[in-house]
């Protein structure tokens, strides 16, 4: 005699009650084309390029696991800044394209860029009818920058990020200088000397400007050691500058 199925117990009715209850509560569906999704700022939607920051170091193209970043550059010569000296060569960006058909949205390029030229944006509605249009060129990537949200604040207990650290340091020192300047301005004339000295030592603490020259002795020693000529010259110059600065500082300390 085959076994009879177990008689229904409360379990079946609990299930029925649950579906009925769900029917009476509002649905959780967000009707997408009419309602845009609420995406967090770190969402990896599309990569935006800040051209002004890019120095064409090619790190992003090298680190991409898919090799989907195409960069072309050319060398340009520009006059030295501040007049005089030889012409400088600089890399200029010609083509920067990301093929989003290959991109796997890993974010390594954004992480690795040393100049903060790449950013994530939560935009995701860029599907096209032709796969060629999925390769976004420089101007389109620059336009994505308008959609990049500011990074969210970090959780309590997190370390402050490096950029914010240096920014905070600078702000702190600037604030201190402003305060001491204010205090100096407020003091009566009688105590000017002591503070003037403070201001002066502050000025004197600045690095004295020394025109670089080759220290012949050091240069000869280095070339005799077998150091290549260019390196030897650079080191000799640096040595000269260092010793000159130390000398000038010592003079100032003596006189001041």
């Amino acid at each position, binding site marked *: 005699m085959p076994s009879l*199925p177990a008689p229904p117990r409360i379990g079946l009715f609990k*299930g029925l009650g649950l579906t009925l209850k*769900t029917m009476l509560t509002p*649905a959780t569906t967000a009707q997408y084309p009419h309602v845009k999704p609420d995406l967090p700022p770190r969402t990896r939607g599309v990569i935006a390029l800040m051209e002004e920051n890019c120095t064409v170091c090619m790190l992003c193209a090298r680190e991409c696991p898919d090799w989907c970043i195409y960069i072309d550059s050319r060398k340009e010569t520009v006059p030295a800044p501040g007049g005089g000296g030889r012409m400088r060569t600089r890399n200029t960006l010609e083509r920067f394209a990301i093929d989003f058909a290959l991109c796997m949205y890993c974010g390594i390029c954004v992480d690795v860029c040393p100049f903060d030229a790449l950013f994530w944006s939560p935009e995701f509605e860029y599907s096209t009818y032709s796969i060629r249009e999925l390769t976004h060129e420089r101007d389109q990537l620059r336009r994505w920058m308008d959609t990049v949200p500011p990074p969210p604040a970090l959780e309590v207990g997190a370390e402050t990020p490096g950029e914010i650290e240096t920014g905070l340091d600078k702000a702190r020192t600037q604030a201190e200088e402003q305060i001491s300047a204010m205090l100096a301005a407020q003091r009566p004339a009688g105590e000017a000397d002591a503070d003037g000295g403070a201001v002066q030592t502050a000025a004197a603490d600045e690095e004295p400007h020394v025109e670089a020259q080759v220290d012949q002795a050091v240069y000869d020693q280095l070339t005799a050691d077998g150091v290549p000529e260019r390196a030897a010259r650079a080191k000799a110059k640096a040595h000269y500058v260092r010793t000159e600065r130390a000398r000038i500082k010592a003079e100032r300390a003596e006189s001041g």
Partner: protein
Amino acid sequence: METLFTLDNVWLALLLKVIAVLIIFLTVPLVMGYMEHKVLAHMQARLGPMEALPHGVGQLVADGIKFLQKENVVPAAADKWVFGLAPGVMLIPAIVVLTVVPFGPGAFAENLDAGIFFALAVSSIGTIGLLMAGWASANKFSLMGGLRGAAQLIAYELPMVLAAAAVVLQAETLSLVGIVEAQAGFRLFGTITIPYAVPHFFGLALFFMSAVAELNRPPFDMPIADAELIAGHMTEYTGIRFAFFLLSEYAGMVVFGALATVLFLGGWYPWPGYLLPEGFLGVVVGFGTTIGKIAAFMFLFIWLRATFPRLREDQLQRLSWLILIPLALLNIVIVAIAKVVA
């Protein structure tokens, strides 16, 4: 009771009846289908169709148009004639049964003296259609689905017929209109007027469960279990023929809901003993009542579909042969005793 469509010209009356039945057949299942979409969706914490006309009311019409314009694919190795006729064989019985089902006072096509007998006999022709579809599809999965389906339908015919037989015993007539009228005058042990659902509670439960199994609805949908057999006997069908299978399921739901309404819930009377207003208003109220009761059954069908996993084939068979049929026989015995005593 005479049908509304009594005219001098027999052929005109016939034409009107056919048109009326077809209108009911084409609209009510669609409304029930829309109800299924929306109710099922809300039970699953989602919205259901919303795009085709506001709140998705045009969804099934859009589905129909979609099916019409699809390519009709027939597998090369299929038995063409059997393959082509199977959807029709499943669909026509549903339409034919609708001719005897009363939707209101006078709102029926025919008042056959053997109404319920005719209805149950014709509705079981659908089994052949299922077998034809499974066999002719040249597909192992379809074949298995067809065989399972046939076994299931045969197994669940009996509890349904026996439950209906108990009602026939109570009402002392096989005519569907007669059963409704008998319920109108029914008094439980001579006291209160209630529909047959109360004394025939087990009968109603049996009839309902059998109906769910006859329609291949979850939890008895093993023949079309889509996780295993894709769509069972319907796998190889495309386009309008597939739509016919789906339509036959919804039409079947309407038919079984209507039969259950007539047999157990008092038909077109909002409450037994409560007389309807005369004339056309009465017909409208009666019709509305029937549709409302069918919708209630529809809700139960959908509720079961949303909640329960499906029973395995052998558990299904065991349930029918070892539990439902003995209970149905017991039901008849009790009703007979009560009828004789009271």
